Structure formats: C-alpha cells, structure tokens
C-alpha cells in the first residue's frame, strides 16, 4: 500500500505532435480509489500505462511510495494490472493464471495455492473453475480471474484499464459495486481508468477528469458535479449532460431566450475584467423547473423520454430556438407539442468563459 504521485509526467509520441499526456500532476493518497476519466484520446490509458511502466516517460517522473519509479521496469514496481481484454494466459489454467506472478517471485507451491484459493473465494470463483482454461469461461468469469490475478499479488497499487467495458450492462452494474466493495475491504491504492462518467462518479473516492492529455480537474464526485472548474468538466460529468448555451451579456446578467437571467456580482465583474460581451451559460436539466406558465423561459416540447421515475423533456426555446433538456416528474410529464415554461434559480446557473471555458468566479 502506498501513495502514487505523477509529477509533471509527460508522454509524446511523434516529435511535433501534441503530447498524449501533458505535464500531469496528480497526487493519489494511500488506499485511495482514484478514477481517471475522459473521452477517448484524453490520455487516461496512456497515463495508466506510464504508471505501469509499459510506456516510458518523456518528461517528469512518477513515484510509488517514496520511490522514484520512472526508470524501474514493471516487474519491480510491485503493481498489479487488470487489462481491458483481461489478457489471461490462454494455455494456462485459471489457477496457473492467478499464480503466475507468484511463481515468478519463486513463492513456494503450497503458499501459492493457498493465496490463489483465497483470492478465488474472495471473488466468488468456484473451485472447479480453477482447473479450466480461459476459453472455457464466460466473460464475467474471465473478468474475475483477471481481478484475481491482480489481487493474489497483494501489490502496492492496483491498476485497472476499463475492466468493465466488455461486460453486458447488467453485469457491469453488478460488478461495479463488487469492485468498489473489494477495494474498500483490501484497502489497496487503486488507479482506475474508464470513459464512463457514471462508473467514475459511483466508484471513485476522487475522480481526475482528463481531456487532450491535460488534467482538467481532480476532485470528489460531489465537487466535480457541484463545482466544475471549466466547461469541459461541467459538460462531461452528469447525465444527462448540462445544458450549455452561448448567450450575450446584459446589464444585470445574461439573456437567454428573451429572458434575463440574473448573475451574481462576482461573475459579472469577472466578465467585465475579461472584456467579455458574451459567455457560456450552464444549467443542469434538473435545475430547469416546470413553472406552469409562470416561468421566465418558454418553449415547446419536441420529445419526451420516459424513464419511469423521471422524464427527460427535449425542449426548443421559443425565442432564439435553442434546444435544452429538462428533467421532469415521471408521473404525468407534458406531451410533445405542448408549450411549457421553466424557472431557474440564479444559484443554479454556471457561467463559463466563451473562449477558454474556464468557470467565471463562482
């Protein structure tokens, strides 16, 4: 168990291309479950592989515990990794797969068998599966064997590269909580990569959002949701996504679909200092409250997605024609074609710089 540090870690592939990972600074505490999330190409997998030692660093360093492991080969870093496609050894039995690393460490056979059996029990892997080969297992079983292979090693750090992406939806939800539970029990520092922000939010102690090789924000899920530091994080975290619109500034606030939404003084002065005439407004769907004709934003319902407990309304605002999504009660949502109005609390409105995307004041 140890803490992990990325210090200005950089990886460049082609000489004149932008870095795949650009000066990443990340402090992961001992025993923490840290999720690296971002769209494809964001550098999250590369960053994980740099920690594993499977990608070299072109700049900066990586520390595990208090040791600088930048030039240490993977096998000496005391880490274990779960690969996206599991990467199980095809010709070895499940037991041999899980015990392989221990065999490389010259751990005696009975100790090896004991630890393998223990890990198998922890993961609900039946004893008779131990002698089977990977190709005789189901996808879910293979995933557990991949996890078992990592657990058996009792490493300092767990690395997981999108381990749930090959499972069907139901199994994914089930396994998600199992992994989180397991990590809590074992207490091993875990770095987990995913492109699914729902996974990130539900599993991580903290979540690092990456885009274009750069770290956007690293915070608890709650903080990321309530206090996104820029437009990218605001739009990436939360499902359905936050409504984002470029709107002009007026005297007291910003003008959206004919209505003036008041902005706090701090935001207004920040905008003024930056010399802005317009900015990007962000409003989460659940903050658009149906107002029975009395709301300041008016529009027509184009499409209703009924989810059972709630409904998502795709609305086209009358003035200006902007499209927004609003969350409504599931029981009797307005139907398509219906005219509706919304009210938004001033506190629920986010403002972002139209060019840099940075959050204005707040």
């Amino acid at each position, binding site marked *: 168990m140890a803490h992990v540090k990325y210090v200005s870690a*950089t990886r460049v592939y082609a000489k004149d291309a932008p*870095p795949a990972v650009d*000066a990443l600074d990340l402090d992961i505490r001992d025993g923490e479950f840290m999720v690296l999330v971002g769209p494809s190409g964001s550098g999250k997998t590369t960053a994980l592989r740099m920690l594993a030692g499977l990608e*070299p*660093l*072109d*700049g900066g360093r990586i520390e595990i515990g208090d040791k600088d492991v930048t*030039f240490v080969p993977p096998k000496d870093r005391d880490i274990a990794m779960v690969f996206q496609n599991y990467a199980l050894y095809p010709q070895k039995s499940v037991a041999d797969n899980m015990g392989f690393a221990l065999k490389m460490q010259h751990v005696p056979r009975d100790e090896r068998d004991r630890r393998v059996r223990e890990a198998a029990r922890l993961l609900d892997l039946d004893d008779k599966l131990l002698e089977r080969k990977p190709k005789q297992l189901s996808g879910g079983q293979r995933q557990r064997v991949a996890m078992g292979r990592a657990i058996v090693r009792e490493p300092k750090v767990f690395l997981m590269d999108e381990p749930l992406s090959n499972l069907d939806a139901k199994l994914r939800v089930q396994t998600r909580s199992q992994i989180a539970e397991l990590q809590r029990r074992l207490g091993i520092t875990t770095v987990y990569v995913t492109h699914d922000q729902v996974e990130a939010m539900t599993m991580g102690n903290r979540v690092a959002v990456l885009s274009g090789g750069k770290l956007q924000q690293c915070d608890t899920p709650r903080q990321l949701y309530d206090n996104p530091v820029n437009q990218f994080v605001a739009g990436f975290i939360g499902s359905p996504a936050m409504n984002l619109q470029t709107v002009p500034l007026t005297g007291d606030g910003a003008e959206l679909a004919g209505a003036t939404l008041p902005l706090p003084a701090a935001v207004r002065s920040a905008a003024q200092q930056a010399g802005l005439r317009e900015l990007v407004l962000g409003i989460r769907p659940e903050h658009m409250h149906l107002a029975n004709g009395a709301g300041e934003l008016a529009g027509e319902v184009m499409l209703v997605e009924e989810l059972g407990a709630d409904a998502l309304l795709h609305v086209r605002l009358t003035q200006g024609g902007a499209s927004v999504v609003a969350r409504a009660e599931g029981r009797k949502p307005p139907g398509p074609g219906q005219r509706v109005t919304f009210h938004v609390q001033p506190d629920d409105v986010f403002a972002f710089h139209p060019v840099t995307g940075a959050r204005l004041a707040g």
Partner: protein
Amino acid sequence: MTAVAARAQRAREPRPGRVREMSGKVGWGIVAWVVAIAFFLPVLWMVLTAFKPESAAETWPPKFTFSPTLAEFRLVFSGWGPYVTHSLVATVGSTILVLLLGVPASYALSVHPVGHWRDGLFFFISTKMLPIVAAIGPLYVIALKAHLLDSIWLLIILYTAMNLPLAIWMIRSFMLEVPSELLEAARLDGAGRIREMTGVIMPVISPGLVSTALICVIFAWNELFLALNLTVTNAATMPMFLISSVPQEGLYIAHLSAAATVASVPVILVGWIAQRSLVRGLAMGAIK
C-alpha cells in the same frame, strides 16, 4: 528558464532509458544481419562464381576478386532455349490447370460444403503423402503405352496432380476467411452460386490466389524427379538443363554456377517481389 521552455528542452533531449533501448535494438540488428548474410552466402557465392572465367573458378584459395566475364552466361543462354520453353509451358500450364480445378473444389469444401467434406479434404492431402517415387516404374510404362513419354503434356498432367492438394488446402483456407456477412448480403441481393463466386469470393481472395499460384509455380519450376525419369529431349526442363551443364570431364564450375543462377533466378525474383503474398500464403494457408 521558464517552465514551458524547460519542458520543451526535456522533450528534445533523449530520455536516459532511450540510449540503452537504442543500443539493444542495434545489437540485435547486427546479429540478425550477420546470420542472414551467412545463411545467404551460398547463393551469393553461386552468383559470384557465375561471372568468373573457368580458370578463376577452381582455385585455391577461392577468388573473391577477379575480372568478371559474361562468357559463361552467353554459353548458358545459347543452350537454354528448348529447356526454358518447356519449363515455362509446364509451369504455367499446370498452374492454370491447378487453379481451374482447385478453385471450384475448394469452394465445394468450404463455403457450401459437400456432405463428407472432411473425407474429401483428407483424400486430397493423402495423395501428397504417398511418395511419387513408389510408382515411377509403372508410371514410365503407362506413359510409354500412352505415347506420352517425353511429352510436355505428361509433365503438365503430373505437375497439376502434384500441386492440386496443396492448392486446395490453401485456397480453401482463404475462402473460409471471407466474412459470412458478405455472403449473406450477396444472397439477399439475389446472387446465385456463380455470382457469389465471381462477384464476392474471387475478388476478396485474389491475393490468396496469387500466393497459391506462386507456390505452385515454385514447385513446378523446380521439379526434378519426374522430369528426369520421364523426359529426354522433347520435354526436358530447366533442372535437366542444369544437370547437363555438368560434363564428364573438364572444368565446369563457372559454367555450372551460371546455369544454376539462370535456372534459379526467375523463381527467386518472383519470390522476392511477391514476398508478402508468399509469406502470407505459406503461413496462413498452412495454419488454418
């Protein structure tokens, strides 16, 4: 120095691990080159000796520098006429026949298989396993009685039978690689068996057909045993030409080298140029 500039400079310098990486790669490359050249040496020596005058070909120590001459090549080219013609006819003829027979047969053993396709495939392979040498005496007698002795047609017939099993094995494996969705889409579009074959399968497997044809060409061109025993002059092929370049007495090494070079170069060149195709055919066709 600003942080940005420092970062830029670090990106330009090779990182410490990289030097060790590069020298490892270079070392490996050197070993590979040495091994390859050593392995290739006999071929190199053959070609080199072909340019020697006979007096320089049988010396001790062997000569690496000498004044090259085309005399032996001229001799070879003045004599090779009928032989190379026969080789070309036998090779091209048998390869065409192999493809004509083999493509439909492979089709019947892969895409729309017959009932006992496993047995059919096994039958073809088994003919390859039986040594042709076993039947050479009776074969001679049959050829004699059928007036096919010393006939190029005999060679075409026999070479086709020789290469057909291998061709079927290879073409079949290439046909199995055609994605079934493609075939299903064609069927939905109303394609019958023939359209399916010409419109979908042939285009997709054409690289595989090329590599199969290449392998047939190699084996047919290089074949000695049947040519030696069943031909005399009217159908004598390049391997026979090569043997004839070894006289009972007298110096012959340079002449032999020239003949060997000329005899081997066509297939070597074809193999080099179509290397990727050949490798793929050999490895893939063999594996499946």
